[in-house]
């Protein structure tokens, strides 16, 4: 794996947290434009692919960031790897499918694989720095910190990180990316009923964990 530090990235990089409308409403024109870029990229047009990178860097980064527990360096590396895989596998992209679903599919599965590998490292959450430390330690008011208090934000990350990777992916795609059940099923290569079940179980687990956290306080 390519080390992020090889390209001058380091852990002091601060992600850009901004409040945006959650739903990325894609107009038919924008979707047609993306399809044409994707098809041009398939024919070897690299600038067309770079336009897609420009458009999707934020959603893909956000997905990786949430999936990987708020680790800035890992999120950057995973987002870059997602685009690299997309580029090298462009010939497998079906233009009849939404480009965003295909890209989210790559990102989700990559992060799930990464989390499964990480499971064997046995690192306790409490031993790690607080998620979004760079954002939250910034004296400037941050939109994310404004939307949720620091403690709430930390709690949300804890709850998410407590979920199995598959459940976490479904939850993030549902809440942060506002994907429909069908789209989540497509991205995670599963059925709609499995997605509904995962989301239900995820909320149940989060509620149980939240209840336990409150009891311990």
């Amino acid at each position, binding site marked *: 794996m390519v080390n992020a530090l090889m390209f001058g990235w380091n852990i002091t990089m601060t992600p850009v947290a901004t409040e945006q409308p959650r739903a990325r409403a894609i107009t038919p024109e924008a979707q047609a434009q993306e399809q044409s870029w994707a098809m041009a990229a398939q024919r070897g047009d690299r600038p067309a692919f770079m336009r897609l990178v420009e458009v999707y*860097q*934020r959603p893909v980064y956000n997905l990786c960031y949430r999936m990987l527990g708020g680790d800035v360096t890992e999120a950057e590396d995973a987002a870059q790897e997602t685009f690299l895989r997309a580029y090298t596998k462009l010939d497998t992209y079906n233009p009849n499918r939404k480009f965003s679903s295909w890209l989210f599919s790559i990102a989700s599965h990559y992060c799930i694989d990464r989390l499964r590998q990480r499971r064997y490292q046995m690192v306790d959450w409490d031993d790690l720095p607080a998620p979004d430390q760079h954002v939250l330690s910034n004296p400037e008011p941050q*939109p994310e910190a404004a939307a949720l208090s620091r403690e709430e934000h930390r709690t949300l990350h804890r709850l998410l990180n407590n979920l199995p990777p598959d459940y976490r992916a479904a939850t993030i795609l549902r809440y942060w990316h506002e994907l429909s059940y069908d789209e989540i099923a497509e991205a995670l290569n599963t059925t709609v009923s499995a997605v509904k079940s995962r989301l239900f179980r995820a909320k149940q687990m989060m509620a149980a964990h939240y209840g336990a956290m409150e009891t311990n306080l």
Partner: protein
Amino acid sequence: MNHETFTEKMVLWLDNGLNAPEITELQAHLAGCPTCQQTYQTLQRVETLLRGGSKIMVGPPPGFTARFEMRLAYHQVRNGGHLWWGFGVLLLGALFLFIIGGLAVSALVSSGAGWLDGAIFYSGLVGLIQLANTLGVWLNLVGLFVKASLLTMSYPTFWGCALAALALAWLWLRVLKYVNRPVATSVELLI
């Protein structure tokens, strides 16, 4: 109905997935069940956290596209390097084959070359074997090979071999490209 069933309904309610009669039924149950009330409050709190947190899309630090272009270039150079090494090795092999082939063809079709008739060639070979330890002999041998190769260029066989070598080179490049393709993971297998 047990608590689990009502928990499902609570999750659906929070997701706007219940109709009016179901909501009324759930509310009636909640009014008389402290356990479910507690569960509902916790689920509601989790829902609030998720909705509050999901208003924020975290983006990468500035310069993401430029960094990606660097990474892509690195990836292509790294993978392309293997191809060029393979091509170089193939080219050397092809050159060696041409020289050996040229020598063989020259020996067979030596009627037009007086200096390379069978007797001279045989005695030359014996002499080469006897003096193989000396550098001068090796240089002579190389010279002989080069001369033979140049001579061979006047025969159609040479150009046939050249075309065959080019075809093999192309085939080799295809094989190397296939071998050096990115390693398939569960991600790619599912796409």
